[in-house]
């Protein structure tokens, strides 16, 4: 039986939440489960083009541990999910507008395009929905 698609609404700029979103998205996508991620609010800053881990990820003790222990990089994990599985990533059009960003402000090769929340929520009606 096919797995229900997984829809992840990623809003937080906290490292641990971005990391968990990346882990869920990548593992789900490579497990023959369609996954879609909608990135908005503070989370969008983690995907700005050309940033290193210290600029990209912010958080508390666990963020420091993730960096010190060299846990898999979240943006890299999202990329692996796209390369190896069925993962789509959408940049919140409102977040882009508020920042005055175009898609080329974000890391290359990760996003499938800008999207509005209404369309994402409509698509998500028949799947499992997770907010981080």
């Amino acid at each position, binding site marked *: 039986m096919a797995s229900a698609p997984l829809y992840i609404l990623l809003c937080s700029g906290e490292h641990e939440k971005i990391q968990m979103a990346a882990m869920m998205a990548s593992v789900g996508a490579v497990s023959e489960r369609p996954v879609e991620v909608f990135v908005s609010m503070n989370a969008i800053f983690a995907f700005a083009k050309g940033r290193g881990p210290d600029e990209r990820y912010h958080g508390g003790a666990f963020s420091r541990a993730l960096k010190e222990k060299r846990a*898999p990089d979240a943006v890299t994990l999202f990329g692996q999910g796209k390369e190896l599985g069925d993962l789509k990533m959408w940049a919140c059009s409102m977040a882009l507008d508020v920042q005055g960003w175009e898609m080329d402000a974000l890391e290359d090769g990760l996003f499938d395009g800008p999207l509005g929340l209404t369309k994402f929520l409509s698509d998500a009606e028949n799947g499992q929905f997770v907010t981080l």
Partner: protein
Amino acid sequence: MSERTKIDARGAFCPGPLMELIAALKLVEIGDEIEVLSTDKGSAKDIPEWVAKVRHEMVSSNEENGVWSIVVRKAK
């Protein structure tokens, strides 16, 4: 004749060993085997779970001195 490729994922954290396995499986032929060496406790259960879900084949899973050797055969 089938071949076996070894991946040394010791020191990699979840889901690193699984992602390395999946990337390697893309590159080998059906019937070939991948051996993953991992020190990540979760991978010892995660990899067999993934293998069953996507219908590859588990060959073996053994632990020695904190290092798991997990062998998977590409089935499709």
